[in-house]
């Protein structure tokens, strides 16, 4: 750390949003410090060599929702940004068949027709409707939401803009949006499809990271959120950054540093210093005090409002809203080092279906049953698994001929009823391994090493409360106007100079960077306003 202890801005947390935020502030000329508690930046977006030669995306494992503006504005290409598309989805079925969808529409139609002629035709209509919904929702995602409770001229103008946008939508599109935002993924998909494997493959996007089943109200919102991702303008496409999401956050760190931001590692913030209702800096755990007129928390809302500051400094209603903000993480990871690629009984000798995602969740009942276990406080006996063997598209991830396989697993509720994750860890790992084995016989013999990441590990290592990967659930009352709390959806806090920029703010989680970017816009706009007022 430099000898100077005074900064224009201090960002707490070097996750991707903290890095994005710090980079923008530094780019705007602010003397910016990003403080990271761990020995590496990235937060939940890191890559670690946890087994010699094998690079694991320990937590988050794919790239899709990153806002394209950030790539350009922060000059990420210059620093090594490389999104490799993972262009297919392979869904094994319980009878040994599969649904394999790639990037060619006509090929997909024939593949779906093996399961349902009706659904093959319906897919075009579904894709078209989803595209329209994404087109309608994208402007909402790509702007700071109005403050519904503000009465300033700006607030009213922003609300009017929003109303104008919504009024401009075709009735069917707006209705579809509402049906998705409030309803279940299953109901929405039932409008289009009859085949279980087709519906289940699509419905899986509706449960990722959330404590909902595909038939729960609210899973539609999660489905929509994931469909808003894009790679190179292609909606719903997912990719893999070279070197994993850790490779991506290293790119972000280089960009931030190139703009002049300073990053310190292995440094923990104890609290934000507040004096007369405004922040003056942060105090580190070792007692050091660092001064800054702007302090930005990239941590989740619980930590931002109840741990980094004394809740007594805040309005009671806000504190109560944060208390009621739902986390209830329900996802886990199991990462494998593999001696070779698995084989699927129906595709002997083939391996190209591993260049995308492997979606283990073959029927709607399978997904719903997996959720049932979680509802009653236990992890799924037959879990949903979103797997990807990233070394197939980025060979640097593993030694030649070997592979890393990232498995995102649901459901794994943070709170086990009469159980303890540290005790259940290996048993859970076995369940995951057994499940994969049942679809890919021989899988177990390929496993060289496995890393189990429970929701408790996510909380302990990354700092995400209750292990929620989105820093707060994607529920309608926790989105847009209300993320993270009514009236505090514009990145400010009741404490002057103290801002929030984590995934617990609009638009939300996933490696999208939008919260970090919007927060920087708000901070810079406020700074400009206070300068002109002087």
């Amino acid at each position, binding site marked *: 750390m430099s000898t100077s202890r005074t900064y224009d801005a201090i960002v707490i947390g070097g996750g991707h949003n903290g890095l994005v935020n710090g980079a923008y502030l530094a780019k705007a000329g602010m003397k910016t410090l990003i403080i990271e508690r761990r020995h590496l930046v990235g937060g939940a977006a890191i890559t670690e060599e946890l087994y010699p030669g094998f690079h694991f995306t320990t937590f988050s494992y794919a790239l899709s929702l990153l806002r*394209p503006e950030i790539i350009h504005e922060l000059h990420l*290409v210059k620093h090594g940004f490389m999104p490799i598309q993972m262009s297919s989805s392979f869904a094994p079925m319980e009878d040994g068949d599969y649904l394999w969808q790639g990037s060619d529409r006509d090929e997909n139609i024939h593949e779906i027709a093996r399961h349902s002629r009706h659904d093959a035709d319906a897919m075009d209509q579904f894709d078209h409707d989803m595209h329209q919904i994404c087109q309608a929702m994208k402007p909402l995602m790509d702007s700071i939401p109005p403050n519904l409770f503000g009465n300033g001229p700006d607030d009213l103008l922003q609300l009017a803009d929003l109303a104008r946008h919504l009024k401009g939508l075709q009735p069917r599109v707006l209705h579809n949006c509402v049906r998705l935002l409030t309803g279940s993924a299953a109901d929405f998909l039932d409008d289009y499809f009859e085949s279980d494997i087709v519906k289940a493959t699509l419905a899986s996007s509706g449960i990722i990271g959330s404590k909902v089943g595909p038939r729960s109200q609210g899973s539609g919102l999660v489905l929509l959120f994931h469909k808003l991702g894009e790679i*190179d303008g292609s909606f719903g496409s997912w990719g893999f950054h070279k070197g994993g999401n850790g490779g991506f956050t290293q790119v972000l760190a280089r960009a931030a540093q190139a703009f002049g931001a300073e990053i310190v590692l292995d440094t923990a913030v104890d609290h934000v210093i507040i004096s007369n209702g405004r922040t003056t800096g942060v105090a580190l755990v070792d007692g050091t005090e660092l001064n800054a007129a702007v302090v930005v928390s990239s941590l989740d809302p619980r930590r931002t409002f109840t741990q980094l500051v004394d809740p007594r400094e805040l309005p009671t209603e806000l504190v109560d809203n944060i208390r009621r903000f739902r986390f209830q993480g329900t996802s886990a990871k199991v990462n494998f080092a593999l001696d070779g690629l698995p084989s699927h009984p129906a595709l002997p000798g083939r391996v190209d279906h591993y260049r995308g995602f492997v979606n283990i969740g073959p029927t709607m009942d399978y997904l719903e049953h997996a959720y049932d276990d979680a509802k009653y406080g236990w992890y799924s006996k037959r879990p949903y698994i979103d797997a990807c063997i990233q070394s197939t*598209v980025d060979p640097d991830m593993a030694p*030649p001929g070997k592979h890393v396989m990232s498995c995102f697993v649901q459901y794994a509720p943070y709170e086990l009823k009469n159980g303890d994750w540290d005790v259940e860890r290996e048993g859970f790992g076995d369940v995951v391994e057994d499940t994969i084995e049942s679809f890919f016989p021989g899988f177990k013999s390929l496993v060289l090493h496995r890393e189990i990441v429970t929701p408790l590990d996510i909380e302990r290592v990354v700092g995400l409360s209750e292990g929620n990967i989105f820093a707060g659930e994607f529920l309608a009352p926790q989105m847009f106007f209300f993320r993270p709390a009514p009236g505090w959806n514009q990145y400010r806090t009741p404490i002057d100079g103290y801002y929030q920029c984590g995934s617990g703010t609009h638009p939300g989680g996933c490696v999208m960077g939008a919260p970090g970017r919007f927060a920087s816009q708000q901070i810079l706009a406020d700074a400009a306003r206070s300068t002109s007022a002087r």
Partner: protein
Amino acid sequence: MFKTTPFYERLAPLNETGLWSHWSGYLVPRKFQMNDKIEYFAVRNSAALFDTSPLYKYRLTGADAERFLAGVLARDIRQCHNGQAQYTCWCDDRGFVVEDGVVFRTSADDYMLTSAEPNFAYFKALVGTLRVSIEDISANLGALAVQGPRARMLLASLAPEVADLKFFEHTQVKFGDVPAMVSRTGYTGDLGFEVWVAPHDGSALWDLIAGAGKDLGVLPAGQNVLVMTRIEAGLILIGADFHSSRFALSDHDSSTPLELGFGWMFNGLANSDRRFIGRTAIEREIRDRTSRWKTVGLVVDWQDWNRVYQTEGLIPPKDITPVTSEIMLYDDDGVHVGYTTSMMYSPILQRHIAIGRVRPHLSSVGSRVHLEATIHHRYRTVTTHVAKTALFNPARKTS
């Protein structure tokens, strides 16, 4: 009847799409599987194998071979050492480009010249009394391009001396029992090599290289990706970015080397007494600054691209498929000042990019032009800037 290349036997079962390009009368895969990006990222992140056998190849031998090439090619072959290669072009006596190609110098009296179009009769007619013999060896050599960051590691695992080859050098090696010439050349703008082999060794060479690459993420790649990567590399293509002056119906269809961005080929020309075809016209063009165009790299302003589509309620398209039909360019006043000849969305640069021509006064890096875009059946324009080629230029290409 289309012919097949020395690698066809191996490529045919790998080409799942059934899509083939017709390249100089040969079948080469357009793509091996439906998503071009899989092959594309193999080039940029591991390595890819391209069948480039359909190139025309001429062997020039004899005591006067150097003198002949010094008089025919625009670049001075005498500056090219044995074991080196030169990217060059040849012009007509009015200073228009006939074609471009790569010349490989084995010794003072032994060369190989490659070109995309037939030039045998053209060169033959220029021999006169010189002691040089020209042989069309196009069908006698297969060519396999191995391109990407892992290309060197891959080939050196089979023939360690490949590791020592510098950019634009070539040498004879043996891959297993297969004798081949390897050159550190290519059309992708990446670290890469081309392997030149006798046709009867094609399958054996493929088995060796593809076998060694199996666990390295190496993939076969088709023409689509070759065209994409060459645009990023700023490498022009006959039939797309220029046309041979031999077959031009008017001077509008011809280009001078200066107009194609080959000015660097004539550095030091003033201090050289070498006579070559087109020299007088080229010198006059340099002196009088009569170039009509400059071929440049272009990068489309991403914000403006988004703006023109979003104001129409559309999601901005990002299509990686190269467009080689002309798209017009205008200046700030709406005056026509150029056109693109190859355009695409580049996944690695995350921008729409192009190779195009602009009037010389707008050719410096950073100059602003406006690219025509058709949106909802009406013309719009998008801000675009002139950029330095190669637009994608990793250090590994030459290191």
